[in-house]
């Protein structure tokens, strides 16, 4: 045990790095944040708005509690937190060690660049001097030359050098003597002898006298550079700062494909008006070129017709990129929507895509908004671009093939390319140095079932370094990685920094607030278990509530479908059951809760036998018209009271039931889950050639359930491949709208095509017809490419209906949270605070939060646990200095301020009948003060009296 404060190195200051750093800092750990560029924020500092909100909410990442420790400002202006040391323009020099003891050295780019490494070249041959000078200068080294040892000594006396490259045989004083004399003048000078092959012995001798190394003539430029670079780096490493950290989070991000590399079919860099989406983002921004106007970058004329090309450097074998970059579709949806709505001049906004990947909870609806705004979406890939005719430059001609096979042509002022995400050079080097396991494309491959763990203990990874990621997944993954780092620091016996107020000799602040040191986790599926375990492992009591009689949730039926999931589930269940800090309550649900947020006292009650399990998570007293729960059994109440400071909603969800009427539920019609279970139980003979038709988006991505469930496409592909592996003559046809295989899951799509699975796209309103009777199913459809009516007799029809969240509004509201329009947990911010309610003490994970696969579920569970742990780790919270106060003498209890407060921070204390402020929820915005007519709601310095003074002061300043 040591009283050392835990410290984590975070590599990369993009949003993943910021998120991980803030989580660690809020938990009280120290963070060393290294960033190569000159600012934090990464890519996001170039994006004014994000999908699917068309707004920016980056500042919502800032912690809501202990706000005084963080600069309350837009993150574009910078980040500052007491516990985070931020080093921008800094390179990582080396990293060695093990969990609990990594030594890291890093160097600011501002000190010790190559221009600080002057080189002296001494040779009597001019050609050698000149060529050496040319090679080294090109690389940025300041070079001086001397044609004799004597001149060299003069130069050495005048100024200092880091490196001297000297010939051995020279007229006058020879190189070896020069070496001795030079070392007298400048003992730390690195001297490299240059010699002909014949004189190597002399060179070796010179090394005994202090030369660092030698080069054999004739030398090749690379060898010279490598030698000087090595000396430079060693010298630099001496200047580098060194530190010791317990854990490392790699958040170095990804880079964008450069469209001008390779065959460049779209003429990026050659054809004026072909830009990347990042360049277009700047054009859209008022801070970019063109200012408030949207103008052509070359001609300066207003832009009216814009085309977006998807999959540039993604899903393209020609650029060595078989994977999908996950985010580009939505970036283009956003840009086209913004262009169309911000600039009425834009008459044509047209997105050319292959599959519109609007996966996840809110994206599909966003794309519908874009369609409504008049953005045209064309399922076509444009093969190449040629510049328009110069003399009448009317635009860039774009030619494509529409789905019916007709060739179309249109002119566009701008073509916006959506380049894919690729691993960057830093990542490749780091992965190699640290021997991290990477995938075929160079992204770091996380360990299965351990989101963010690399093969190296103590080194965690998140964000773009693990593959193409959007903000939401990056932020979630970053919090999960922060949890892993916290676990390393805790097991190394490290401490957290507690509030400085506590130790100040000037006296203790008396307004500290503590949370009840425990967590209530509702839902015993894999999400709930993972969250419970992570919280309990950090030393906090957890009550885990499960409505059924067993743990595991959906993973129970899914376990055979996912490789390794069975034993993972078994391990997790055993760990939860064996944990001395976890109390498991099966066949139990939440009845009601008392107390204020953070100091909840929640009553758990057994699920009644008669109750349908599916409704059991509904708070009982609300479900039954206010009648008190059944306490009659045995005269003694079976209810349990639980005190907790945070709550994690992990109630999961289920496969949605098919929305459209099915033909008598014919024998061959299965839902995706039913089909999976039949496959897993060998109820289907995959060894014989089967005809199977799979239908995607059954009831999803349509009004009513207008989100993509994100899991059905990969599951269908998995099932199809399994059928094809069982018998190659099996005929599998997948009817789809857009195959949602973002990121690296694209490879399963390709595999399925290779295996001969037939994919048939359809549009809503033109759904294939499924009929069934005792003899089997029949599918009729029109193939859009062939333009022919097709028919298929199928042994099985499989309907992918997607996920239906299982969270009831009553349960969410019990803890001050709510449901979103799709019935999932309403996140405080879908991008920036993805696992929290507006109140950060209310968390959610798994598929009641958002649709996702096992990896995403585990990531959200660990992210939620990270939030819970960082809150519970604080013994006392001291409210911000600007926390709102109530002058009760003036308060009429009109509750206008309660309505106005965006954070539910104000409430009427039932005991005193006075208005109170929850100091941990209050963000000091002052909205209450503006709403209150009586001046009873006050926020330090942001109320009437000081504002009147300020107004007077500013108006009476001299001009």
């Amino acid at each position, binding site marked *: 045990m040591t009283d050392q404060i835990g410290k984590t190195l975070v590599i990369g200051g993009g949003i993943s790095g910021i998120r991980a750093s803030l989580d660690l800092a809020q938990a009280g750990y120290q963070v060393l944040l290294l960033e190569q560029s000159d600012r934090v924020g990464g890519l996001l500092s170039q994006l004014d708005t994000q999908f699917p909100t068309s707004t920016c909410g980056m500042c919502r990442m800032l912690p809501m509690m202990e706000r005084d420790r963080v600069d309350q400002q837009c993150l574009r202006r910078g980040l500052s937190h007491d516990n985070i040391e931020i080093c921008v323009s800094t390179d990582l020099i080396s990293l060695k060690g093990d969990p609990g003891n990594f030594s890291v050295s890093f160097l600011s780019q501002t000190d010790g660049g190559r221009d600080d490494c002057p080189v002296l070249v001494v040779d009597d041959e001019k050609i050698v001097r000149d060529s050496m000078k040319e090679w080294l200068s090109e690389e940025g080294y300041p070079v001086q030359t001397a044609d004799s040892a004597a001149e060299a000594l003069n130069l050495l006396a005048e100024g200092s050098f880091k490196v001297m490259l000297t010939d051995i045989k020279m007229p006058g004083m020879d190189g070896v003597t020069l070496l001795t004399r030079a070392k007298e003048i400048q003992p730390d000078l690195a001297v490299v002898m240059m010699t002909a092959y014949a004189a190597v012995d002399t060179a070796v001798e010179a090394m005994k006298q202090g030369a660092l190394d030698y080069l054999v003539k004739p030398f090749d430029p690379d060898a010279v550079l490598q030698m000087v670079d090595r000396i430079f780096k060693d010298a630099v490493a001496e200047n580098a700062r060194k530190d010791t950290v317990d854990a490392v989070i790699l958040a170095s991000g990804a880079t964008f494909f450069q469209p001008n590399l390779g065959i460049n079919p779209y003429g990026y860099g050659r054809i004026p008006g072909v830009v990347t989406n990042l360049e277009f983002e700047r054009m859209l921004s008022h801070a970019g070129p063109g200012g408030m106007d949207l103008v052509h970058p070359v001609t300066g004329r207003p832009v009216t017709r814009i085309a977006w090309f998807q999959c540039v450097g993604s899903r393209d074998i020609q650029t060595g990129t078989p994977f999908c970059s996950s985010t580009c579709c939505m970036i283009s949806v956003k840009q086209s929507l913004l262009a169309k709505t911000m600039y009425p001049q834009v008459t044509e906004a047209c997105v050319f895509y292959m599959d519109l990947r609007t996966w996840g909870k809110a994206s599909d609806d966003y794309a519908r908004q874009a369609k409504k705004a008049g953005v045209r979406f064309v399922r076509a890939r444009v093969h190449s671009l040629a510049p328009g005719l110069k003399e009448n430059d009317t635009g860039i001609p774009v030619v494509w093939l529409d789905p019916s096979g007709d060739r179309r042509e249109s002119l566009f002022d701008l073509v916006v390319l959506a380049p894919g995400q690729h691993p960057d050079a830093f990542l490749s080097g780091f992965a190699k140095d640290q021997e991290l396991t990477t995938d075929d494309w160079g992204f770091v491959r996380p360990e299965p079932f351990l989101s963010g763990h690399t093969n190296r203990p103590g080194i965690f990874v998140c964000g773009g370094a693990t593959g193409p990621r959007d903000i939401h997944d990056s932020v979630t993954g970053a919090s999960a990685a922060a949890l892993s780092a916290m676990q390393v620091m805790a097991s190394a016996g490290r401490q957290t920094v507690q509030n400085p107020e506590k130790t100040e000799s000037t006296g203790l602040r008396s307004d500290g607030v503590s949370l009840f040191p425990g967590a209530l986790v509702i839902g015993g599926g894999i999400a709930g278990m993972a969250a419970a375990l992570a919280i309990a492992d950090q030393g906090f009591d957890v009550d885990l509530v499960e409505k059924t009689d067993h743990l595991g949730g959906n993973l129970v039926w899914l376990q055979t479908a996912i490789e390794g999931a069975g034993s993972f589930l078994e391990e997790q269940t055993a760990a939860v059951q064996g944990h001395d800090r976890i109390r498991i309550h099966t066949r139990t649900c939440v009845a009601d809760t008392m107390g204020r947020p953070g100091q909840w006292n929640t009553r758990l009650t057994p699920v009644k036998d008669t109750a349908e399990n599916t409704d059991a998570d509904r708070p009982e007293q609300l479900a039954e018209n206010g009648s008190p729960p059944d306490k009659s059994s045995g005269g003694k109440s079976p209810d349990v009271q639980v005190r907790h400071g945070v709550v994690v909603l992990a109630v999961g969800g289920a496969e949605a039931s098919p929305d459209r009427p099915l033909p008598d539920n014919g024998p061959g019609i299965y839902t995706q889950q039913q089909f999976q279970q039949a496959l897993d139980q060998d109820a289907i003979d995959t060894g014989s050639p089967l005809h199977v038709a799979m239908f995607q988006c059954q009831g999803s991505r349509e009004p009513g359930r207008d989100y993509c469930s994100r899991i059905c496409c990969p599951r269908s592909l998995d099932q199809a491949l399994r059928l094809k592996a069982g018998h190659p003559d099996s005929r599998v046809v997948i009817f789809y709208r857009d195959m949602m295989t973002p990121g690296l899951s694209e490879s399963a799509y390709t595999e399925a095509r290779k295996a001969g699975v037939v994919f048939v796209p359809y549009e809503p309103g033109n759904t294939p017809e499924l009929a069934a009777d005792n003899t089997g199913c029949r599918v009729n459809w029109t193939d859009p490419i062939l333009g022919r009516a097709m028919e298929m007799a199928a042994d099985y029809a499989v309907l992918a209906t997607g996920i239906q969240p299982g969270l009831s509004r009553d349960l969410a509201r019990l803890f001050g949270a709510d449901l979103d329009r799709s019935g999932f947990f309403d996140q405080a911010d879908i991008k920036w605070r993805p696992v929290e309610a507006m109140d950060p003490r209310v968390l959610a994970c798994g598929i009641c939060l958002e649709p996702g696969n096992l990896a995403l579920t585990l990531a959200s569970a660990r992210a939620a646990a990270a939030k819970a742990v960082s809150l519970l780790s604080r013994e006392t919270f001291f409210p911000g200095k600007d926390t709102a106060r109530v002058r009760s*003498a*003036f*308060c*009429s*209890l*009109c*509750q*206008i301020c309660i*309505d*106005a407060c965006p954070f539910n921070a104000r409430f009427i204390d039932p005991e005193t009948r006075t208005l109170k402020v929850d100091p941990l929820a209050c963000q000091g915005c002052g909205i209450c003060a503006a*709403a209150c*007519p*009586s*001046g*009873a709601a006050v926020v330090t310095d942001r*109320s*009437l*009296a000081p504002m*009147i003074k300020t107004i*007077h002061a500013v108006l*009476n300043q001299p001009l």
Partner: protein
Amino acid sequence: MIASIQTKDHSITRTLQDFFAGMLKTGAADAVLVPSRMSDSPYVKPCLIASHDRLDRTVPLGPGFFVNAGPMMSRLTRTRAGSTLVAWLRPCEIRAFVELTKLRQGAREEVVIIGMDCPMALSRTDYDDWAGQGNDMSDDVEKWIQTVYQKPVTQVDAWPVSRACQVCDAPYPVNADVSVMLLGGDLDREIALRADTEKGEKLLAEMDLSEGQEPERRKALLADLETERTEAFQAMDEEMLDQTGSIESLNRFFSACVNCYNCRSVCPVCYCKECVFNTDAVAYAPTQYLSWADKWGQVSLPNDTVFFHLTRLAHIGCTCVGCGQCTLACPSHIPVSDLFISVTRNARKAFDYVPGRDDAEPLPLSVFQESEFTDIVGMGNKEAT
């Protein structure tokens, strides 16, 4: 459901008194709130009466209006009392109470509101004149009733109707449980009551009344009143604009104001426990006054007069019920309500808000829509005032 009470002894007042007494006797009401004289003085104030034999001094209908009963209702209903209260209110009092319930200053659950057609009240000084010193006002009251409910009047004998009442755009009950339809009625014979809510129906059912109907002339009379009052409002609005259309003239308008804040004390929707202008929020250092005097050459005290009135306009801009109490209360005879009614009735149009119209209608400043008022955002749009 419309019921009818037969008028007894040609006295409408007596008939109504009996009606209230009946409620108390049958237990349909535990108490009634009715304007009443406390002694032989002519002044009437809302009185909470629990005993059926104490109704003889009540004046349910009459030209005296000294207190808006809205805030009194707020006092009586702030927390549950466990009893049924029947309140006899003027339309502007109902409006005030509805607004106060939205501000959580009261609750309707235990109240049955009987609202009446209210053609007018007299100003305070005119009322004094009208009532004289007479101990028995009953004949005058009956005469008044027979006059004002039969046709639009702008004055009763020599006494002009108060300005706020002259421009009142809703002289009939809105949002009451029971509406007493007096306008155009054959009041010497019967009084018609309409139940507007379940609670109202229950009350009328318990009173065991005969079936009635809306007076035939009532609708036409209401239309006439509306026309007349719209015109009166426009005239007042123009007059006010003329008198206060600039900061300079506003200064003049309020030049007699002594910052007594009576207007806000009697205002039924100025619900603050303590006005912010009475707190340290608007207290200045002596140097501040000197600095103003320096800036303008002089500074008249007390200051912040216009600041106070403009703030009050902002605070009650949507909720002013137009009862005219502020004018009645002003010691300096400033027609405060003329200004407030003219400004707020125009201002609230932007939010399509009418105070008292609907319990469920949220206060305009407590809610918002994501896409609204886009015309007031940005530069260069020369939007209309």
